[in-house]
């Protein structure tokens, strides 16, 4: 019985947290987010080459470090806590898609570049009518002999405007109605139009990606992508836990410091109890996210139950805490300069991505055969 991150993993967390606080404070996050790229390529280079983050979970034969999923989950938590502007999450998810669905040649072709940080890859799945991007898709594959092309449109593709490789879900081809398969599309492919969107979440660039007879290569032959959505939900939960912790830390620090009526406002139960409720919400959601990461790492079928559960719990803890953080901060919390709204935006964006808490519970209810 050892349901906790081990000391090496906690050391890794501590050093990563220090690195991000030092190299990528929120002032830098804002700067980087406003650039065309939406992240600081120098920082990404350090995260890749110095810390080896994008290759942590990849096999050693593809230049990775061969860890399980616990270490990437720690990276998600810490980059979520710091709102780090980087394509880490996009590369993580895309590489997991390649690892789970690609054949050996595709893995050898794509993974070393992702591991080194030279290739930025992303998952392009969501469509307006399909938040998870695996059912009810409009984007369609057309096979003509060995040639495959995609036509359709994807939204909210993380780093979609600049990624070198896009892993795209599409219906059509030889899969049945309502099913989808993954395709690899190069960023410079003909018939590809990429438009950065005016994002509600200011610290994560997203793009609309249009395909018009765009050449694509099928990624393996699996037609069931739910495992990928469950993994994504799991890792997003970890990211949201980091964000929730940051909100609680901000609120508590302010409540200790800010004086009104000759007392720190945190001594008033009206404020103290709200902070306590944030911790109660966080603590439960954190346990759920940890369990989801654990079963994902074990490749246990329990992930089908725990992933939507953890996603819903984390989203509710994060949106609750991001909102109350603003309330505790008071007027200053409502300003553009204060960072609270960056977390508030991330909280509601993550909550909606892949489906709201209610949508997650609907999936959970189906899977439990309620």
């Amino acid at each position, binding site marked *: *019985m050892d349901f906790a991150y081990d000391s090496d993993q906690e050391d890794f967390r501590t050093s990563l947290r220090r690195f991000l606080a030092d190299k990528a404070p929120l002032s830098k996050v804002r700067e980087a987010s406003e650039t065309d790229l939406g992240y600081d390529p120098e920082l990404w280079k350090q995260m890749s080459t110095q810390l080896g983050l994008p290759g942590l979970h990849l096999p050693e034969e593809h230049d990775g470090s061969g860890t399980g999923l616990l270490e990437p989950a720690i990276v998600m938590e810490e980059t979520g806590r710091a709102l780090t502007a980087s394509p880490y999450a996009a590369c993580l998810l895309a590489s997991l898609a390649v690892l789970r669905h690609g054949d050996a040649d595709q893995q050898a072709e794509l993974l070393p570049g992702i591991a080194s940080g030279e290739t930025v890859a992303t998952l392009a799945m969501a469509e307006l009518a399909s938040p998870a991007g695996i059912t009810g898709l409009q984007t369609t594959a057309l096979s003509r002999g060995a040639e495959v092309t995609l036509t359709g449109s994807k939204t909210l593709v993380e780093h979609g405007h600049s990624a070198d490789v896009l892993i795209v879900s599409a219906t059509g081809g030889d899969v049945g109605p309502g099913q989808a398969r993954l395709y690899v599309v190069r960023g410079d492919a003909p018939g590809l139009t990429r438009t950065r969107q005016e994002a509600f979440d200011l610290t994560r660039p997203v793009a609309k990606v249009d395909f018009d007879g765009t050449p694509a290569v099928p990624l393996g032959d699996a037609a069931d992508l739910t495992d990928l959505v469950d993994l994504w939900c799991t890792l997003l939960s970890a990211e949201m836990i980091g964000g929730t912790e940051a909100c609680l830390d901000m609120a508590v620090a302010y409540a200790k410091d800010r004086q009104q009526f000759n007392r720190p406002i945190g001594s008033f139960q009206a404020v103290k109890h709200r902070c306590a409720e944030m911790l109660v919400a966080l603590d439960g959601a954190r*346990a759920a996210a*940890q369990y989801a990461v654990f079963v994902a790492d074990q490749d246990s079928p329990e992930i089908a139950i725990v992933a939507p559960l953890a996603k819903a719990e984390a989203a509710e803890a994060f949106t609750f805490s991001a909102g109350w953080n603003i309330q505790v901060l008071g007027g200053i919390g409502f300003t553009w300069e204060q960072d609270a709204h960056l977390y508030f935006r991330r909280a509601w964006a993550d909550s909606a991505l892949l489906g709201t808490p209610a949508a997650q519970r609907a999936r959970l209810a189906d899977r439990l055969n309620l």
Partner: protein
Amino acid sequence: MDVDYPPQAQEFRARVKAFLAENLPDGWTGIGGIPESEREAFREQWRRTLGEHQMLAVSWPKEYGGAGLSLVEQVVLAEEFALAGAPAGSENDAFGIGMLGNTLIHLGTEEQKQHYLPRILSGEQRWCQGYSEPDAGSDLAGIRTSAVLDGDSWVINGQKTWTSAGHLADHIFVLARTNPDAPKHRGITFLLVPMDQPGVEVRPIRNMAGYSLFNEVFFTDARTPAKEVVGAVDDGWRVAMALLGFERGVTATTDAIRFRADFDRLLALAQERGLTSDARIRDRLAWCHSRVEVMRFRGLQALTRSLAGKPPGPESAISKIIWSEYAQAYTELAMEILGPEALAPTGQRTGGLLQMPEAGTENSPQSWVETFMSARAGTIYAGSSQVQRNIIGEQLLGLPKEPRLDSGPFRELSKQRQPKVGA
């Protein structure tokens, strides 16, 4: 990271399972499956069986008649009893064995241990807890029940309340004020008091669910020998707080097991009424499932910490809030599922419950109404949710305490009370 129990624990688990299979009556579904008139006799018989098989006082060392089980064995035993819906002892054992016994083992004199522990174990003495008073609830250290030495005995006057199982008890451990000139936390003494004397009167309190599970206890010149002090005179607050720490996280994983069983009952209730396809009910059921799972995951974290030798700390305040608020939410959902059926509820009564009905209770509208009513108590007893949030805010988050109005000698405090608004 892993969630596996050590092999020795699993061997022990198999032994407990075998014991339960062998000794529980045929067709056992839980106490709730036994007619109410036969429950008391079953409980007595079952307690004797537990005693014969070294399954009472599992946390006590062997030299005092306990089972001397390791922490993980105690956890496994608690889990298996919870899964089987089997009681772990009598209602008074929670106080006698769990609280007082462990306190005496750590803080009692050798004479006290030799005298009391065998009697608690044999069932000769049935204990209850005299802590709360009408004017000392959340502010427990504000107790007014007094004890004054008269020759070689204490003379006790005052009133305790919310005394669970007090009507079944013949002994009570009492927090009494022995030094009103000291600050409120420093003039309290922990006394052991026999109840079969003219100066002690027990009156049942009927709770809002209709059951009398707790009592008022009145002391009028009640007496106990001068030596019946645990710890030092005027040092009872420390003893009272230490007592709360002796649970050592044994129940970390059982809340989830018990709430899981009652969730299954709730799900069946919804299914029987064809409501699981209703979008709102379905969402709330999935939410309930999630919260019970969260309890399970947090239990695994707590057990990991306990097995690493870390005593449970203020984070247990989070557990208290999670389960007690969940208890209200899932019973409110039951009321929603029942709708008008809840207004003239039919079927088996629970016979009274603290957290949830006994295993085996019929899935009746009546049982749900009683569970719903009883759930209001969970956020009040054993430290209200507001007290828990203070603990979380101050001890886990480091937020400053409120300015205090209750320092200085206890005797002076009542004079300084803030006037009541409108008085």
